[in-house]
């Protein structure tokens, strides 16, 4: 029966090619535009670490000026001071995975490799748990242990891309990298790792590349003068001549894994106690205002999905609606235009349900054709989006999930648009139309 309906549908499309094409184009435009926006939006609102996004928490402490908040209304700074991050890393209850970190940078070269150009490296200085906490995949070797954190061992973990550039992609564990006048031993090489958005540090852009290299945080302490901070440094009080590390400036991030609600409560109490203790030392003069945000909340706090994209998403659905209304109108005109045929079919014994099915099949076919063309348009749209934004390659692409959504949306939209016209046509009285003939 379906095959028969399909044949009728094809016949009908061919009989009125102009109107059919118009409807397909309308559906395709609606799907193309809305899918472009949906793709960008969903990838921006993507969960970068689905297995752990509920249990990883970013910590904020309100160490800001007693005279004004970091941000209205009473928002604490998004980063920590160096000393607070170190203190939390050291004193957080045993058994909790945690990492303190900061972005930094240096120039790295391979000693003795004359033909390899020195590379500017954007690096992350972090404590040992970083790799475990964020489930970072390794190609060779591994991260480091807490002992290396303690004695500021000169070790380095390379990203796959940097290992490619410096060592041609071979297993470089055990080799040396020269930074300034010192040598650093490679202990691990990462596999491809690109959480999108790059939730763990959003300061240099939510869709930035992951870092090129990773070193123990204690190394940054020793290289305060020559490495510097790659990211934002925010100060409410000018740092002294000793620089930003012992100052009240914030430039460090801190993450902790809290497996359940009880752990969250305990950790809150721990943070409050820490701040109360610091208050006695004359720091933290603002009212208690600590925050724990899991990955979802953290992406919200940092407004990773731009308002522009939400606005465009909303408008694109209105666009889709106009396209659908258009299709409903055209279908209605087309179906009612063939009332005579339907009258004959009904008089010859076709049931209402059959007539309804027949027309819905036709509409479904239109939906599929419109959906396929719409996907092509969405692909074009995303190419356009990539051209418009420099850093959107990662956000603007179609994956299988989105393709499935697009086809589903097109067929659903088509059927929705066809429901009323098909219902109208199956309600006609055969007698009326037979008479006018």
């Amino acid at each position: 029966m379906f095959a028969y309906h399909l044949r009728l549908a094809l016949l009908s499309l061919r009989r009125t090619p102009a109107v059919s094409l118009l409807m397909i184009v309308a559906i395709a435009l609606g799907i193309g535009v809305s899918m472009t926006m949906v793709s960008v939006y969903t990838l921006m609102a993507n969960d970068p670490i689905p297995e752990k996004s509920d249990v990883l928490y970013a910590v904020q402490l309100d160490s800001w000026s007693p005279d004004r908040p970091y941000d209205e209304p009473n928002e604490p700074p998004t980063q920590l001071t160096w000393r607070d991050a170190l203190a939390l890393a050291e004193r957080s209850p045993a058994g909790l995975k945690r990492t303190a970190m900061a972005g930094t940078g240096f120039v790295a070269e391979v000693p003795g490799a004359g033909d390899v150009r020195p590379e500017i490296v954007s690096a992350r200085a972090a404590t040992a748990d970083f790799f475990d906490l964020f489930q970072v995949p390794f190609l060779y070797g591994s991260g480091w242990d807490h002992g290396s954190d303690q004695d500021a061992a000169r070790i380095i973990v390379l990203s796959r891309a940097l290992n490619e550039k410096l060592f041609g992609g071979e297993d470089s564990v055990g080799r040396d990298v020269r930074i300034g006048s010192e040598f650093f031993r490679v202990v691990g090489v990462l596999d491809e790792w690109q959480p999108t958005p790059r939730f763990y540090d959003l300061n240099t852009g939510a869709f930035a590349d992951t870092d090129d290299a990773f070193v123990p945080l204690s190394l940054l302490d020793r290289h305060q003068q020559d490495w510097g901070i790659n990211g934002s440094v925010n100060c409410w009080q000018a740092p002294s001549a000793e620089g930003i590390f012992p100052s009240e400036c914030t430039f460090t991030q801190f993450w902790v894994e809290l497996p359940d609600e009880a752990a969250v409560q305990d950790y809150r109490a721990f943070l409050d106690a820490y701040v109360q203790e610091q208050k006695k030392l004359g720091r933290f003069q603002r009212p208690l205002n600590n925050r724990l945000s899991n990955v979802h909340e953290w992406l919200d706090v940092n407004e990773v999905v731009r308002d522009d994209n939400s606005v465009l998403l909303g408008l694109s659905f209105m666009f889709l609606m106009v396209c659908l209304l258009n299709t409903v109108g055209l279908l209605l005109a087309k179906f009612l235009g063939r009332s005579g045929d339907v009258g004959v079919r009904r008089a010859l014994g076709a049931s209402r349900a059959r007539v309804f099915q027949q027309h819905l099949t036709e509409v479904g076919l239109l939906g599929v054709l419109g959906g396929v063309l719409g996907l092509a348009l969405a692909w074009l749209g995303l190419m356009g989006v990539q051209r418009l934004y420099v850093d959107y390659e990662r956000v603007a692409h179609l994956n299988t999930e989105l393709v499935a959504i697009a086809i589903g949306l097109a067929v659903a939209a088509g059927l929705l648009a066809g429901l009323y016209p098909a219902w109208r046509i199956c309600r006609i009285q055969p007698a009326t139309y037979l008479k006018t003939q």
Partner: protein
Amino acid sequence: MEIRPILSALMRNRTGAMLVALQIAITLAVLCNAAFIVQQRLAKMDRPSGYDEDNIVTVRVVTLDRKDRDAGRAGIAADLRALQGMPGVVAASATASVPFSNSGFGWGFQKTPRPDDPDVASTSLVLADEHALDAFGFELAAGRWFRPEEIIPVADFAEFGSTSAAAVVVTQALADQLFPDGNALGSTIYDSSSSRPVTIVGIVERAQGYFVNDTSFDNTAFTPIVLSGGEALFYVIRTRPGERAAVQRDVESVLLKADPRRIVRRVQSFGEIRAEAYQNDRAMTITLLTVSALLVAVTVLGIFGLMSFNVNRRRKQIGTRRALGARRIDVVRHFMLESWIITTAGAAVGLVLAVGLSVWLVNTFELPKLDWRYLPVGVVVLWVVGQLAAYGPARRASGIEPATATRSV
């Protein structure tokens, strides 16, 4: 022209007309709000920066080996001489970050040394040497630029944080915010994080800061400090008109000749930096314009489709009217008027939708409220579009022979 027969004809295909009217309503709502957002973004991108944008090249230099303060200073001076010597170069200057780059010092200045002074003016702080005025090409409105002996070399960021210059040059916008009465020149202001005093020695007409999305984008202050250790080093080079491209091409080799062991990055014209800074606004504008154009196209097709359908269905009636003495122009008028009525009904609903959409945008995204003048303009656009879409089918209707009335199908 009688409206009644048109209305009664319309009522015969209510659903079709209503569907098209609804399309027009949504189209109007989207069109008005999109046009309003586009206009705002265009205005934002159109703000003058104060720099000689067409003739500026900037470049970042990364040294592999950190230098001490004085060696660094000498190296920078040598670089600047080399750059200055390039054909077509007007001036070159060293700084630590480039305006419009979304990266640099966000600072605060206030009129009193009190740490709890509520009136802090947010500003971009630009490190500048004695050549910066010529290298950026902005206009001095009052006072003077820094003298060579005023420039303080500092080794690194740590030393920068604890150094304060005695003099500062501010933009007119910053001067006006701190001194609405206009006596900024010669006044003392205070760094809000350290309460250290500085004296305003010059006022620049206009020089926009680092962050294009900041409300205080026009507030910029220049401090006579050069970061000489190599931690963050940018050169700003201004060329004679028409010579920018050549300088941009050659600057890397000139800088590498002085020191082959360093890395030269981000050789950009100011236009490129500006385009990157405004890329979101530009993308939003282009996307909204594209969607609006497609939307109007779909709506035109909708009106066209409905009118064509109506013409086809009423061939007999049209023939009859023609046979009874209606002129071709009467038939054309009939359909044009019908389209106008549908458009107007849709637009009436659309006005409400447009305001509703604007309220949603204002409440959810803190966008500014829709300027009401966009509404009548939108209605006029749709009237024109509606008439154009209906003209083809109306012309076809007027070509129907009176004899059609006598045929049975």
